[in-house]
């Protein structure tokens, strides 16, 4: 079945440094969604990418969807302590019923002030 791999599992950065997490799917995706989960909280939707090669920006966050629609990345420029949390990618496929998303394992980001 469809698998979504995400690396790294953990990332510790100094405040002000950049951060990137990478997501790879075993199958071609119809869309990819990114979520952020703060410690003790629930996943909160950040963004969705649907087009091959698509790039979207939200302030210091840049999201990319690969040309083959099998990989994606999230890059945070100049991290802040408010960026702390776990970032999940989640892939959707036209073969998944009901828009079901398959989640990566997440990348836990810690930021040292």
């Amino acid at each position, binding site marked *: 079945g469809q698998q979504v791999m995400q690396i790294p599992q953990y990332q510790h950065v100094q405040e002000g440094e950049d951060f990137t997490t990478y997501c790879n799917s075993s199958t071609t995706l*119809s869309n990819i969604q990114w979520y952020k989960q703060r410690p003790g909280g629930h996943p909160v939707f950040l963004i969705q990418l649907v087009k091959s090669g698509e790039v979207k920006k939200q302030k210091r966050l840049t999201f990319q969807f690969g040309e083959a629609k099998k990989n994606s990345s999230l890059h945070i420029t100049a991290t802040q302590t408010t960026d702390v949390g776990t970032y999940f990618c989640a892939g959707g496929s036209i073969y*998944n019923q*009901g*828009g079901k*998303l398959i989640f990566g394992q997440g990348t836990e980001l810690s930021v040292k002030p």
Partner: protein
Amino acid sequence: GAGVSQSPSNKVTEKGKDVELRCDPISGHTALYWYRQSLGQGLEFLIYFQGNSAPDKSGLPSDRFSAERTGGSVSTLTIQRTQQEDSAVYLCASSSRGLPGNTIYFGEGSWLTVV
């Protein structure tokens, strides 16, 4: 409601007991999902509802797990004869139509601890 609502928020139960977890999706959302998140892990898909039917229940880990949805709204996830490995956060989510690309909105989860 304004968001996905889940209850109870926390549940401690003894091994072997049955538990019921409730989810009230966003009003008007036809698609409802249950996911499970073990400590420090990603989200594991359990089941998907479209209206009251469950076209995809492929993620239910065993026959001790069942779920139903009534009135196209509230859903209940039932775990019978709980085991310690069932300890996790059970997250409910909904989307407007369950189509690929629809945003999925999560509730705050029900934290289940089996002792």
